[in-house]
């Protein structure tokens, strides 16, 4: 298998160049944290980027620079600092929008993907309660309407929909997964029906790394007039993502998984939908006219940005997007595709079982696994002793774990700064785990 064919749409431009060793070294040198040691002087092998990524200097400096030079309240104040702060804030929005193929006014700042997904769910709930007037009619749910998710979802893209169903009388339905953890579309026509109003799914599973069949799901949703909500947390940091081209109605992603700061993320919404959608959090900065009796609301995106925003973090997110753009997401994807091929080779280790696809077709560089006879926590501890950071547990995806018949897995995940050598070191350490616990 070549290393690039599966991450690019067929018929796309020539394959992107791999990162050279010098380029990768330069990338790594940009991440101060990667230089530290852990557990008594061992070099850190950070394989937990799916949980949160490390940050390059430019992102760290952007936040400091904002506080040192431009800190002021945005969208108000008549002074120069306010002007500069607002410009930096809106410039970051433009950078994030361009990064994911959206228009500026289609990007709403949110504290993260979880908050962004909840924003959509609560806006639909508010519409159902009659808010938003005639324009919001299209968001209203009635008892018996259906919301469709998948068994592979992160809890962030499951629980808000369960709650919305409980509040509105809508019914939750879901796609199951196959033995590889891929969304099983076999009975798609029976799951997405005329009653379906929302189809919410993850672009890439944070457990299996499997890429969802976005085109099929969007087409099926459109046929019945349902809204699509894409959890793009695990795709945006690793693949070129063009939300307009994907044709989804909403998408959510977090800065901290794409080399940016914590505390900020984005909700993408198609312009006409955001315009029609009632607000969720209300208060300052999201209004037009306020009287003692009632209030009219600002147009999007401000309508959804009540209160003082996380300005310095948003600026950092914009810088992270530009940093990735400069490197080229097609090259990032190619590099990580090579890492994925190295990661799935853990299946060759006796007693190690992959949870998820064993091939590298439509899958990213995140692998979850179990070691026969050794609990995931214990696996993680032995790896940690070698300086290798992996995640253990259910990774906020209990239903998916249940479908595999396991309570917990260990997970190794890569990012643009991960090297093949690190994954080789991980495989070596993993090979010794069963012996350590005497279960060979």
């Amino acid at each position, binding site marked *: 298998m070549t290393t690039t064919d599966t991450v690019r749409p067929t018929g796309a431009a020539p394959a992107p160049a791999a990162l050279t060793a010098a380029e990768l070294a330069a990338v790594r040198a940009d991440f101060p944290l990667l230089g530290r040691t852990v*557990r*008594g002087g061992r070099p850190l092998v950070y394989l937990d980027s799916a949980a949160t990524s490390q940050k390059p200097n430019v992102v760290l400096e952007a936040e400091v620079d904002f506080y040192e030079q431009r800190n002021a309240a945005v969208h108000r104040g008549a002074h120069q600092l306010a002007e500069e702060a607002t410009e930096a804030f809106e410039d970051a929005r433009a950078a994030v929008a361009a990064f994911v193929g959206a228009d500026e006014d289609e990007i709403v700042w949110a504290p993260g993907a979880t908050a962004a997904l909840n924003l959509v769910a609560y806006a639909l709930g508010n519409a159902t309660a009659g808010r938003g007037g005639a324009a919001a009619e299209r968001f209203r749910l009635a008892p018996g309407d259906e919301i469709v998710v998948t068994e592979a979802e992160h809890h962030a893209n499951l629980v808000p929909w369960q709650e919305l169903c409980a509040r509105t009388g809508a019914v939750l339905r879901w796609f199951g997964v196959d033995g590889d953890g891929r969304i099983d579309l076999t009975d798609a026509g029976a799951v997405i029906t005329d009653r379906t109003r929302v189809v919410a799914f993850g672009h890439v599973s944070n457990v299996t790394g499997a890429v969802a069949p976005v085109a099929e799901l969007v087409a099926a949703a459109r046929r019945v007039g349902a809204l699509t909500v894409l959890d793009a947390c695990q795709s945006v940091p690793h693949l070129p993502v063009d939300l307009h081209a994907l044709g989804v109605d909403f998408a959510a992603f977090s800065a901290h998984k794409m080399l940016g700061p914590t505390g900020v993320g984005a909700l993408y919404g198609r312009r006409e939908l955001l315009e029609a959608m009632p607000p969720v959090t209300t208060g300052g900065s999201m209004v037009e006219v306020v009287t003692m009796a009632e209030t009219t609301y600002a147009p999007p995106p401000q309508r959804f940005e009540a209160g003082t925003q996380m300005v310095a973090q948003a600026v950092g997110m914009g810088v992270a997007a530009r940093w990735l753009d400069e490197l080229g997401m097609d090259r990032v994807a190619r590099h990580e595709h090579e890492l994925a091929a190295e990661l799935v080779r853990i299946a060759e280790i006796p007693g190690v079982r992959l949870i998820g696809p064993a091939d590298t077709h439509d899958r990213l560089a995140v692998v979850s696994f179990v070691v026969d006879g*050794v*609990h*995931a*926590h*214990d696996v993680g*501890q*032995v790896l940690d*002793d070698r300086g290798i950071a992996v995640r*253990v*547990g*259910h990774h906020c995806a*209990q239903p998916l*774990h249940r479908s595999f018949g396991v*309570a*917990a897995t260990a997970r190794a995940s890569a990012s643009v700064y991960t090297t093949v050598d690190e994954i080789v070191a991980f495989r070596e350490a993993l090979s010794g785990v069963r012996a*350590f*616990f*005497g279960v060979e």
Partner: protein
Amino acid sequence: MSALEQMYQQVILDHAKHPHGRGLAGSADPAAGHLAGESHQVNPTCGDEITLRVDVSDGADGRTVSGVSWEGQGCSISQASASVMTELVTGRGLDEVAHLDAVFHDLMASRGKGLGDDDVEDALGDAAAFTGVSQYPARIKCALLGWAALKDSLARSGALAA
């Protein structure tokens, strides 16, 4: 010994492999002169679970833990700790059990230093081997899962009431 070997002492690995008290025994309906309680505890971060049943004999000379049994899934630390605890508390009076529970919690808060008191640690028996676990803040919860289930099931049995 490395920190890792201090945590995974042989006694702990042995208990994890051959746990005592594993397999729910008895019933929630106690025999005459006995009290019984059951508790289900989970560690939400890793999905570890334990269901534990305790049987308390309610004699003239006080209440005694007469049986502990449990079922669960989890890491070697949580399984071994439940096993060690089962051995340690069976046959003990409730005051003693409360004391052991407090001492074990102190040990887990000791950040790898132990309690600095041989007599106290001797009283813990195999449970003293968990000193190494207390160096790893993320694993302390694992070691305490069984103890939390014991405390809760004792409370539910009514044995802690006067």
